[in-house]
């Protein structure tokens, strides 16, 4: 374990302390075990080992990118001391699940979170990377102290459109959102300001050309992700004196399309940047990477929020004593198309306390387990989620039996339908006492 004060990673001169003050993940209210999905689709079970996925979250027709974002962020804002809500001066939604060519997801989220009318709001898109771009831009804004005491809320939110046509990608896709409250009082992750590396170029590895389906070139996507990891780390190392892949980072949290991709990435970088340690690559993976996979392998690919779900997984799954002692996390964010970034930050015991208040693990365990037929019965309605329709009702009849089985009390924002292109939502108490 390296001590933050001993590390080679030194923030920019006189850089203020900024980072993630609070983080919450909303990963839906339903899930399906990956083996059940393999069996239902007739996929080769021998491939589960390399996929490294256990369960995936499943969206309901009464959920969409807006409700997911609000359901992730609301608990963070509810926990703020009185008066602090008004200090959220920037709202960014990051999504590849847009609902309109002009009107942003953020405009609805702003309303249902009750944010100040003096808050800036905007939506960003760069596949699964966009939340990191927003986070870095927001961190720079906060560090500038242009508005001392301001907070920024970045919410990565997406829905899945996959069905049997996606073959082995179907069991790996997730559903949900991650909300990051950024400020100059970071409790969850203190960013190493100025310690980053980026790598981007144009390629068509995966995309969502229409509101009802995705396209993906499996090899191009995997190879691009892996090449970008090497190159973004290389850029990081040019900016951070002494940065060493093997020793600078106590943990690594990566964008997780599926667990096997993260394992392949760790092996590739160990070969390239820590060749003399490759003989112990499996042990190193278990120690520094496996904690980041506990949540992602139970949720599926959250797209833009994936790397931050991996961060939450590190904080809550790694050795608590090691986290409490202070640890540096290297984060790798990748978005098809493509853009990528490697950056880092510090976690400690306060990170674990801050996350613990959100009960992420409890909410993951509470998801209603669906059988294959029940899962498959949702897909046609789910594929309408992003289609612009003038008027429609959400398929409440498909949702109610599942929502009624949700075992713990919570308030959930649900999508109820669209009237004259205006999306409608309501708060629904689940399992009220």
């Amino acid at each position, binding site marked *: 374990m390296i001590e933050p004060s001993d590390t080679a990673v030194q923030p920019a001169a006189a850089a203020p302390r900024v980072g993630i003050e609070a983080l919450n993940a909303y990963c839906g209210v339903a899930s399906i075990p990956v083996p059940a999905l393999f069996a239902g689709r007739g996929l080769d079970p021998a*491939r589960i080992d*390399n996929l490294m996925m256990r369960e995936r979250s499943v969206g309901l027709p009464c959920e969409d990118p807006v409700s997911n974002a609000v359901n992730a962020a609301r608990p963070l804002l509810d926990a703020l001391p009185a008066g602090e809500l008004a200090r959220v001066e920037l709202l960014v939604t990051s999504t590849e699940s847009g609902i309109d060519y002009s009107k942003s997801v953020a405009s609805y989220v702003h309303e249902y979170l009750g944010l100040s009318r003096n808050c800036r709001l905007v939506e960003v898109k760069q596949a699964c990377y966009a939340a990191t771009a927003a986070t870095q831009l927001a961190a720079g804004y906060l560090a500038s102290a242009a508005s001392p005491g301001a907070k920024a809320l970045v919410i990565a939110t997406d829905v899945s459109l996959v069905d049997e046509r996606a073959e*082995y990608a179907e069991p790996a896709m997730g559903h949900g959102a991650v909300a990051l409250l950024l400020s100059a009082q970071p409790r969850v992750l203190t960013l190493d300001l100025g310690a980053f590396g980026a790598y981007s170029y144009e*390629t068509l590895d995966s995309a969502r050309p229409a509101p009802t389906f995705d396209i993906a*070139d*499996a*090899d*191009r996507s*995997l*190879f*691009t992700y*892996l*090449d970008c990891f090497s190159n973004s780390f290389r850029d990081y190392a040019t900016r951070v004196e002494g940065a060493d892949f093997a020793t600078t980072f106590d943990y690594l949290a990566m964008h997780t399309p599926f667990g*096997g*991709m993260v*394992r*392949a990435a760790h*092996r*590739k970088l160990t*070969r*390239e940047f820590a*060749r003399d340690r490759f003989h112990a690559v499996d042990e190193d993976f278990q120690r520094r990477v496996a904690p980041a996979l506990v949540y992602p392998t139970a949720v599926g690919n959250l797209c833009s929020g994936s790397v931050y779900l991996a961060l939450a997984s590190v904080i809550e799954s790694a050795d608590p004593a090691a986290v409490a002692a202070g640890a540096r996390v290297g984060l790798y964010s990748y978005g098809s198309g493509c853009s990528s970034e490697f950056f880092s930050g510090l976690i400690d015991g306060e990170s674990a306390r801050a996350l613990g208040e959100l009960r992420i693990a409890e909410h993951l365990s509470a998801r209603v387990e669906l059988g294959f037929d029940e899962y498959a019965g949702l897909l046609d309605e789910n594929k309408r989620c992003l289609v612009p329709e003038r008027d429609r009702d959400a398929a409440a009849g498909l949702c109610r039996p599942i929502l009624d089985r949700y075992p713990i009390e919570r308030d959930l924002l649900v999508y109820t339908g669209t009237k004259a292109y205006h999306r409608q939502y309501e708060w629904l108490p689940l399992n009220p006492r």
Partner: protein
Amino acid sequence: MSSPTAHSRAAIARTVGEVLAEILPGVPVSPLPEHKHLRDLGADSVDRVEVILLALDRLGIAAPLSAFTDQPDLRAMIDFLHERSTR
């Protein structure tokens, strides 16, 4: 990664065969089915990455993975590695 070393095409094909045998035990590699893609031999995407990276490693060749994306079969992969090793 060491400096590129010139290898004969036959030596590269032999190394690719050895790597395949390690990553995909049971796949017949003698003679090497050069007209097939790794996918046709049962390699999933993670296996394909491992085969390519291990072959690059053994041969001391540096190349981005993206260079392998559009290769239609093992023959094209071996030709590419041969061309890289003689640069």
